[in-house]
Every structure is written in C-alpha cells, then in structure tokens.
C-alpha cells in the first residue's frame, strides 16, 4: 500500500515536471500556430520629402545656424530584413535586396505572407550596396542605381542647403555595410514586433536623416549644423564627402575661415561621443554618424554593427 502511494506520488511528480517543462517551452516559443502578414515600409520621415525645417513646436527640427535644406536624393539600399525570436527561432522571411529613393515618399519594401503569429523580439535589417538584382521599389533613377552598384554605395543623399542668401549643393555617397539588429519598436518601445493571428502588422524601417548633421553624439542635446559643411564647398559649389575631410572636429572653420563659435564665444566642437570614428575630421564623423541612421517604426533604436 505504501509502495503504491510512493509510486503514485512519483508518477504524479513526473507528470508535474513534464507539465512544467512543457509550459515553459510553450511560453518561450511557439505559443500559437497561426500565421499573419508583415508589411514593411521604408521612410526617411517627413524631412526626406520636405527638408528642414520640419515640424513645429517641440517636435520641430531645424538647423541651429539658420540653414534650410531640401533633399533631391535619399537613396538607400537594403540587403535583408529578418525576424527572430528570443528563443532562437527564425521567421525565415524571403527578403530580397531592394533599393529606394526616400525623397520620393515612403515606399513599401517587402510584404511577407504566412509569418508565424507571435512576438519576434529581434528585428534586423542591413544597409548594403545594391546589386544588379536589387529590386527598385519606387523609381530610383537607373543611372543612379548603376552608380551605386558600380561604386558600392548603400546610402546616397543629395540636395541643397541655403542660408537665405547663398545656396550650397551637397552630394554624399557612402559605401557602408551596416547590420542593424535588435531594433526596438518605436511605436510601443517593446523589442521587435508582434505578428497577429490571421492579421496584418505594418512596420517601418525609418532612416533618420538629421543624424548626418548632428553636432554631438555624446548627449541627446544634439543640434543640426551646416556652416562647417558650407565652408568646404568645392569650386563647383558641391559639397562631397571628401570635401568634409578638410574640417578638423576640434578646429571647425566658417565660410570666412574663422573659428565657428556659439553663445559666449565658445568654439563649436563636434563631439563623436561613443561613436567609433576612424579619424578626427568631419568626413570621418559623417561616415560614423551615417551608421546610426537606421531605426525601426519611427524612433525605435537598433544596435548596429559595421562590417
């Protein structure tokens, strides 16, 4: 009798252990079993289409030194978009390489059907140079696309900035490969996104163009400046990435050749903070800044790895 009780107790315990393990497994992983649809749009925010200043009040973004700006090109090439779970599962999305001009609006990048319904904690995507096979999602000029393919540019921004009197063209082409991983969801500040059961989730890869013009990465009080860019315009009036190399971050000069100062005469210093920067000039700073532009669903930050 006692032996039977012990056997029953052992049997009961064993099933409780199994039930516990099964519960944990269900909680960590495949909790549902139905599928949903993921639609991924691409955006350079309002600034990509209307320029700076943009917005108003506390949400407004404008250049500290009074410049206005319009973009004629915001070309961005992506190699991949992927979703993974904290449990290691992969959504196994078939994301083809694409290229878009965000100055033309917010095109749809990818649509994925039959994605397992659950939270995917790790959203990843890659800035990478396009290939001839890259899909042109919204009418990127074919000559520009060829230029990107041949020279390995993944990001190419161009446009015009003006102080109200003088206008300056800029043309910045970046041969970057940046893996954006672990993106926070800018809508609800959770990790990744949730694919609803038999529903649709709209997501957005958001490129923050203001990062190109930030004067600091050491604090969240960055201001946008263009004077140091304007000062290095070449004889053709176009500012290129290589032109920026003549500006030392610790000795920034204005268009008159004088130190750029602010407020009480303090010299303006561009502060890279924790950015990993190759040198100490504005070209290196801008390249490093470009690696931070990738976001998810608006303000959601990603970790990034340059390759």
């Amino acid at each position: 009798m006692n032996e039977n009780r012990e056997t029953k107790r052992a049997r009961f315990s064993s099933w409780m252990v199994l039930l516990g393990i099964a519960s944990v497994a269900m909680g960590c992983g495949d909790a549902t079993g139905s599928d949903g649809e993921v639609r991924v749009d691409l955006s350079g925010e309002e600034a990509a289409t209307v320029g700076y200043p943009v917005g108003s009040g506390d949400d407004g973004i404008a250049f500290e030194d009074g410049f206005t700006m319009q973009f004629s090109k915001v070309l961005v090439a992506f190699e991949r978009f992927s979703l993974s779970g904290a449990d290691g599962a992969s959504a196994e999305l078939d994301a083809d390489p694409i290229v878009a001009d965000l100055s033309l609006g917010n095109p749809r990048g990818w649509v994925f059907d039959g994605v397992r319904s659950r939270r995917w904690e790790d959203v990843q995507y890659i800035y990478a140079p396009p290939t001839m096979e890259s899909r042109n999602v919204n009418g990127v000029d074919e000559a520009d696309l060829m230029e990107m393919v041949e020279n390995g540019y993944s990001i190419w921004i161009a446009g015009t900035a003006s102080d109200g009197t003088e206008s300056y063209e800029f043309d910045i082409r970046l041969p970057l490969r940046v893996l954006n991983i672990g993106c926070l969801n800018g809508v609800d500040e959770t990790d990744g996104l949730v694919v609803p059961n038999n529903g649709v989730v709209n997501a957005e890869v958001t490129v923050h163009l203001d990062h190109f013009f930030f004067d600091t990465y050491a604090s969240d009080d960055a201001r946008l400046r263009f004077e140091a860019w304007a000062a290095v315009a070449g004889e053709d009036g176009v500012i290129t990435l290589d032109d920026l190399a003549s500006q030392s971050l610790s000795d920034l000069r204005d268009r008159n050749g004088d130190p750029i100062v602010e407020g009480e005469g303090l010299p303006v210093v561009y502060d890279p903070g924790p950015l990993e920067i190759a040198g100490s000039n504005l070209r290196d700073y801008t390249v490093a800044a470009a690696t931070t532009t990738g976001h998810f669903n608006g303000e959601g930050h990603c970790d990034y790895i340059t390759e």
Partner: protein
Amino acid sequence: MINPNRLPPLAFVVSFAVLAFAACGETEGSVVVIDVALEAGGTPASFTTDTGWTVELEEARVALGPFYAFAPRKEGDAVAMLREFLLPVARAHGGTDPLNGRRVRAEWLRQVAFDAMSDETVELGAIEAESGVVETVSVTLNPPDAANTSSTNGHHLYARGVATRDDVVVPFEGGLDIPDEGLSRRVENIPLDTFLDAGGRWVLTVDASAWFEGAQFDRLTEQEDGVYLITPESQVRGAWLLAARNTRAYSARFDLEESNE
C-alpha cells in the same frame, strides 16, 4: 514506450544537464580575485602632435574612475540570452548608452588622481571580479572628489608643459572640465580582448601624449606670468576635450601570472 516511473530521474538528469550547460563554460562566471593597476607607460617625455607641435609635458594628471570591464554583448550562453531578453538594452545613438545592460566582469569603483607622467605602475588593490571573456573597458572622468582635487588643481584633468613649433614656443598650463552631458564624462570601447581569470592583474594605461591631438597652441591668448592659459574659450581646450575622451588615450591589458597561463 516511455515508462512513467522512469521519468523523474530522466527529467532530473536532463534538467541538470541543461542548467549545467547554461551556467558553465570553462570557468566562466566564477568569482575570482584580481589586482588592478594604473600605468602611464605610453607617455613619452617629449612628443609631436598631429598638428606639428612638439610638446614637453611637465605635469599631466587626471581624476580617473570608476572604470569597468565588460563582457561581449552577445555571449551566446543561455544566461546572457535570458538576461538580454529580460533587461532593456539601450542602443548606440546620440546620447544613449551603448554599454547599458552589458555584463560587467570587473569594476574599480573609486576615483584615483593619477600622475600620467609617472614611470611606476600604481597598484590600486585587489577586487572581486567574474571570470570570463572581456571585450571592452569603460573609464569615467568625473570631477575630482575632495581627496583628489588638489592633485588636479580642481579639474578633471590638468596639464602643464611647453609646446614648440618652428620658432614659436608656448609655455602652457590649464585644466579641463568636462560638462555633465549625456556620455561626455565616459570613455567607451577601450579594447581589451582577454579571458579574465583568477590571479591576474587588470592594468589600465593612460597615454597623455594623445591629449593634445588637434591642438593649436599658438591660439592660446591669455597669459599669466608668461605662461599661456588653456581657457574654456580656447581652441586647445576644445581639442583636449575630444582627445582626452578618445580611446587612443587609453589602453588596457590583463596580465596572468605564469603559473596561471
């Protein structure tokens, strides 16, 4: 067919194996005792900056600490994955903390006024740390506390010396105060690729010859007794602010005693 009566020991063995695998990899995760030291090995008596100034430093002091040694962000072990899942991870971005949420293997929490011209290794003492792979070190440059303020003349960093370029000779001195904005007082991503283990010594080296990269000493204007002062409005101060927080001014290593290697 599975015999239910066999399940408790089977489940126990499997669970134990999973937990053991998750918790242990070599001796990673053990509490170990290591020594901590500071060196100024990288600072020569005379050096030339990238702006062409030959600088002879007579004094170079810094209020250092706390400093931390971090495990790689993606360790790949179950504990790290669980931690990352549960804890928020800040993203590298203007003003956010790229190291927030990372695992600290070792930390020196007190501030030290360090003579960056010293020839001798300064032994700070022993600390308890966690064994395992370390990838980066972070250094904090806070205002000097009461015990250290006289050493740095009340500044975060203090320097005195003579800069020469062609026929221009500029005796200089001054202090650097770093604003309390975001991550301004932290130097991140100092590389340290090592396996931290018992009996070793974690050495942080300060190279004051990197402090004046980008400095133009002929743009110092204020003088006192024939010495040019590094004022907050000066270009030299701006260059120093960047250079003193650049990883090029620091290095780190982990020395293991031979018997432990």
